[in-house]
């Protein structure tokens, strides 16, 4: 090892070590590597260390999708493809206010862009948009059969929702055949209904997450409230169910308590479930909702999770005024 050339060689070989084990060296490189190994204890030791790393990595369980998961995925994809075949037409059908707009953008362009400004500021429509809306106000509503006409073009999907935390601006980009820019607020029922529809039924989890982020600022609105509760109960992504759960935490009322109870009773992800039982306990205690007592007593007696039993028991005690 005193030889400078060998030392360099050791460094080179250390760089090549992973590729030697992965059989990614050329024949010459491999031969040179093995020749050096014969005379270098240090490199042999380094190779052994790497082999042991491979042995450790091999202890990661083999991941195989269960047949149930495959079936579930196929069914969900099948439903998504059904919706896809209808595309945004289906969403627009459920949004009569939006569908009543006449999109008067220039033809041949590929994007429809909705731009929202200034959440919480009671935004107003910008003049040119207002003019657009006014100009189309008296136009006949689009019927189902109109949704694929050249006037509106085919709208296939949302490609991006990108909020800007600094300006409060949000841009929703939708693939379509025309381009229209709308500026408005969550007070605008058309915008609100669009976002509520997206958070409840859009296929892309990233889009639902971005939409959820926006909607949670207006949980005082009944439609938004209902959408958030729906997402907390039904979103297919556990992370988003948890996000929705956090979003409803500032709300009050028996429908919230019932929704939280539903999550505690039916949620499969333990993290989401524990967060739900915490939220339920806090809300029910704070709002003194005795209608929850029977369900809480049942959970305190029979839930398989000790944490849930303990949390529900302490809530029952608190409601009955006999807390230890």
């Amino acid at each position, binding site marked *: 090892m005193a030889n400078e050339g060998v030392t360099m060689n050791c460094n080179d070989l250390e*760089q090549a070590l*992973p*590729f030697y084990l*992965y059989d*990614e060296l050329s024949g010459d490189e491999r031969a040179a590597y093995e020749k050096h190994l014969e005379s270098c204890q240090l490199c042999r030791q380094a190779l052994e*260390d*790497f082999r*042991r*790393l491979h042995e*450790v*990595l091999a*202890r*990661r*369980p*083999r*991941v*195989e*999708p*269960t047949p149930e*998961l*495959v079936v*579930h*995925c*196929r069914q*969900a*994809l*099948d439903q*998504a*493809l059904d919706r*896809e*075949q209808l595309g945004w037409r289906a969403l627009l059908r459920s949004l009569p206010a939006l569908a009543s707009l006449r999109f008067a953008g220039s033809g041949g362009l590929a994007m429809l862009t909705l731009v929202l400004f200034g959440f919480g500021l009671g935004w107003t429509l910008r003049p040119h948009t207002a003019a657009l809306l006014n100009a189309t106000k008296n136009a006949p509503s689009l019927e189902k059969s109109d949704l694929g006409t050249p006037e509106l073009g085919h709208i*296939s*999907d949302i490609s991006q929702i990108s909020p800007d935390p600094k300006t409060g601006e949000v841009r929703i980009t939708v693939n379509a055949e025309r381009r229209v820019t709308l500026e408005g607020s969550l007070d605008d029922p058309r915008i609100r209904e669009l976002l509520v529809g997206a958070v409840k039924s859009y*296929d*892309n*989890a*990233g889009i639902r*997450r971005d939409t959820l982020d926006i909607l949670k600022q207006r949980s005082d609105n009944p439609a938004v409230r209902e959408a958030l509760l729906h997402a907390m109960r039904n979103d*297919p*992504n*556990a*992370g*988003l169910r*948890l*996000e929705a759960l956090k979003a409803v935490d500032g709300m009050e009322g028996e429908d919230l308590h019932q929704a939280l109870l539903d999550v505690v009773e039916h949620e*499969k*992800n*333990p*993290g*989401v479930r*524990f*967060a739900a039982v915490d939220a339920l306990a806090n809300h029910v205690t704070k709002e003194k909702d005795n209608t929850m007592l029977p369900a809480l007593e049942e959970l305190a007696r029979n839930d398989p999770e000790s944490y849930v039993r303990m949390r529900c028991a302490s809530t029952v005690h608190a409601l009955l005024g006999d807390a230890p």
Partner: protein
Amino acid sequence: MDGTCLELAGKFPAEGSRLVEADERELIRRAQRGDRAAFDALVRLYDHEVLRLALKLVRSPEEAQDLYQDAFLKVYRSLALFRFDSRFSTWLYRVVMNVCLDHLRRQKGRSEVQAPANPESDTEYFQTVADDRPELDPERSLKGREIAGRIQSALAHLNPRERTVFELRHYQGMKLRAIGELCGTSEETAKNCLFRATQKLRVALADLV
């Protein structure tokens, strides 16, 4: 390039389930004309491997399902653009890899969206998939789960590209040249990613080695 594609395609899916190429081309053409049954057949040809790959890259079956769905919806939307210039499997897995990389990047940037990180969630993940290893005694099984958790955590700390390259090379046995092709990058870049990934894993798992 075609050699790489062939090599790639050989990894997916199992040879026994592969239709002869002419049948596959016919299915693709029918699907491009809007034949939903043909598209479903294409999905079933490749979806098991796509789901397996997704499960390796994310923490939960729910996320894997999202990836699966996003990938096949993207394939459905852009199938008309497929011109038979390359193998369909290569084209499809490029789409899948893009979806996976986007997901990992988003996940990295928005850790709050991930399912809550508690020991239960890892357990849930591993129970969801079949483990065909021989039965272990309880103590070894517990130790095995701990090690599995450590490996999973170490992998989660790799950046999305390193993670993907490592998964494909180490666990799928794919060659770096093929990985570069699949990820739309060079073999050299894939090589650098693999090197960085192994160095990081060596440090993260040093006490287990």
